[in-house]
């Protein structure tokens, strides 16, 4: 039973990391435009995040080093700083997108403009970080975010599951879309699936929770259960858009459209559950990303960080978190299109992936850190292939962004 509770860290990270505003938007958008022809990317993304999050969690458990400690130690202060600036900026866009996303969900439930909700959402995010226990936080938002599973029910009840699976074997864009756009959206999906804050948060969380080598099993369970679960939710969102929105020629540019399939199939109750799930998942992601801002900066400079000490003992960490939330809310209040912010954040995240994942792979192989818990040959082979893939993605992202005019 205790073990069951412990895997919630993984589930929160998976729901909040996999199914956050970025995934809701990217998967629905992709489903509506490319039907299921890009579903394979979600699978590739799940395997990638499982592989690297397991390593990050194992490193944090064995050597007590969260990811940004490792980045600073192995890449040195200069490249580490480049990494910090890039990661912080992308993460900042993500915080903005999540805060706006929570506000958009509240708008859908209340018909009150999302801009009016933003200050309240920002305050709630900060208060939860300030006051709620880390373990309580992850359990509440992890389990309640599972309400999103109603999207899986909707796809199943639509009777289209088989047709969608058949579509998923078509590994090319539909006639209405071009190859560059196909690849651009593939990159967006990969960025949404493997967003670096997931490992920042997951590894820092392992330290916050005080994991010891006996928790390695918990680490594996978290990763092997949590992320694939997030992947299934993502595919359900994509599937709903692929069968209901795509045939009607609807392309997704508002969060409201993401809920149409669930509402259409399951009616009012389904819609309520889905909106609730979206709220919890995006709110959880807002907590994770805001904390990750503090984790990354604190770990680069060596400041006291984390919720495992009293706030006064980690003053600079809490200041960074507070300022990040305030500035993100301010950016969201400029009426910048939250969906656009989301799209840019995941695509830029994709471009920055090797910066985060390369040092993790190196340290997971270093007996100085890991003792005899270094990577197996199998995970190394797979991780190396992923590293090459991530580098290729990172090189291709900006040119594709220009060519496709950001997927327009």
């Amino acid at each position, binding site marked *: 039973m205790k073990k069951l509770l412990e895997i919630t860290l993984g589930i929160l990270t998976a729901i909040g990391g996999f199914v956050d505003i970025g995934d809701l938007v990217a998967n629905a958008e992709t489903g509506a435009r490319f*039907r299921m022809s890009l579903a394979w990317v979600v699978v590739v993304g799940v395997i990638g995040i499982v592989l690297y999050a397991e390593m990050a969690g194992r490193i944090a458990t064995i050597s007590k080093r969260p990811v940004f400690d490792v980045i600073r130690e192995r890449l040195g202060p200069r490249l580490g700083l480049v990494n910090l600036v890039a990661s912080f900026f992308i993460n900042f866009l993500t915080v903005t997108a999540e805060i706006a996303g929570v506000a958009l969900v509240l708008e859908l439930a209340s018909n009150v403009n999302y801009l009016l909700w933003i200050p309240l959402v920002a305050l709630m995010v900060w208060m939860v970080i300030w006051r709620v226990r880390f373990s309580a936080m992850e359990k509440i938002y992890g389990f309640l975010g599972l309400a999103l599973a109603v999207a899986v029910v909707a796809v199943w009840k639509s009777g*289209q599951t088989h047709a969608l699976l058949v579509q998923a074997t078509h*590994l*090319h864009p539909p006639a209405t879309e071009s190859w560059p756009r196909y*690849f651009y959206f593939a990159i967006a999906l990969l960025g949404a699936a493997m967003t670096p804050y997931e490992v920042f948060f997951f590894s820092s969380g392992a330290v916050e929770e005080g994991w010891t080598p006996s928790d390695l099993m918990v680490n594996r369970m978290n990763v092997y259960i949590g992320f694939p679960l997030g992947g299934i939710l993502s595919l359900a969102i994509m599937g709903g858009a692929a069968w209901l*929105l795509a045939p009607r*020629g609807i392309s997704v540019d*508002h969060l409201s459209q993401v809920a*149409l399939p669930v509402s259409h199939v399951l009616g009012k109750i389904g*819609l309520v559950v889905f909106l609730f799930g979206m709220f919890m998942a995006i709110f959880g992601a807002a907590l994770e990303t805001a904390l990750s801002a503090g984790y990354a900066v604190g770990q680069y400079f060596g400041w006291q960080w984390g919720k495992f000490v009293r706030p006064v003992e980690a003053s600079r960490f809490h200041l960074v978190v507070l300022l990040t939330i305030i500035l993100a809310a301010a950016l969201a209040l400029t009426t910048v299109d939250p969906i656009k912010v989301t799209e840019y954040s995941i695509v830029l995240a994709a471009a920055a992936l090797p910066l985060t994942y390369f040092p993790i792979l190196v340290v997971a192989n270093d007996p100085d850190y890991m003792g005899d818990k270094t990577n197996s040959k199998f995970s190394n082979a797979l991780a190396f292939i992923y590293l090459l893939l991530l580098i290729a993605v990172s090189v291709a992202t900006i040119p594709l962004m220009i060519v496709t005019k950001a997927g327009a």
Partner: protein
Amino acid sequence: MSNPKGMGRPTGPELLIPRRRVPARVHGYDIVVRPLLALILAPLLAACVGPARWPSAYEGKAGATADQMVSAVETGRLASEIAAAKKGLAPYLSVTIADAEQAATSIQGAFDSIQPPDRHSDALRDQLDALLAQAVSGLSDMRIAARRGEFAAVERVGRSLRSVSEKLDGFAQQHA
């Protein structure tokens, strides 16, 4: 990508399976060579399509605009169907319809700001403008009704938008 009539995108909710069946067998060429070619050629091609200086470019933009407007109108119609089936919540439907209206307005505005390069393009513009205006005003009516909680009216407007949606889709296919 010439698109003969009848290969258009299905519009009715009853057509959940795509009409154009994609061949199940995918050739190695499709997987390897085409993406590579696309990656290499795309920047070159993209460089050729600037602002609508040529009539063909204008026509392409008109087609794309119609296509985008189909998305907005169909979103509104889907919301109205959900309302008719009593499957949605009032605030949610209101926001969804208002979002669709907002999208429609900005699509219309973007198209109106493009300079038509010749007489033929003027005709094209008039034709599409009429459809865009119908779409926007229909979605506005729908939003007003939704905000007032008059979902019977929402449903009525939704039905009336069907022909607009079909015409927009036809226009998009014709001028792709």
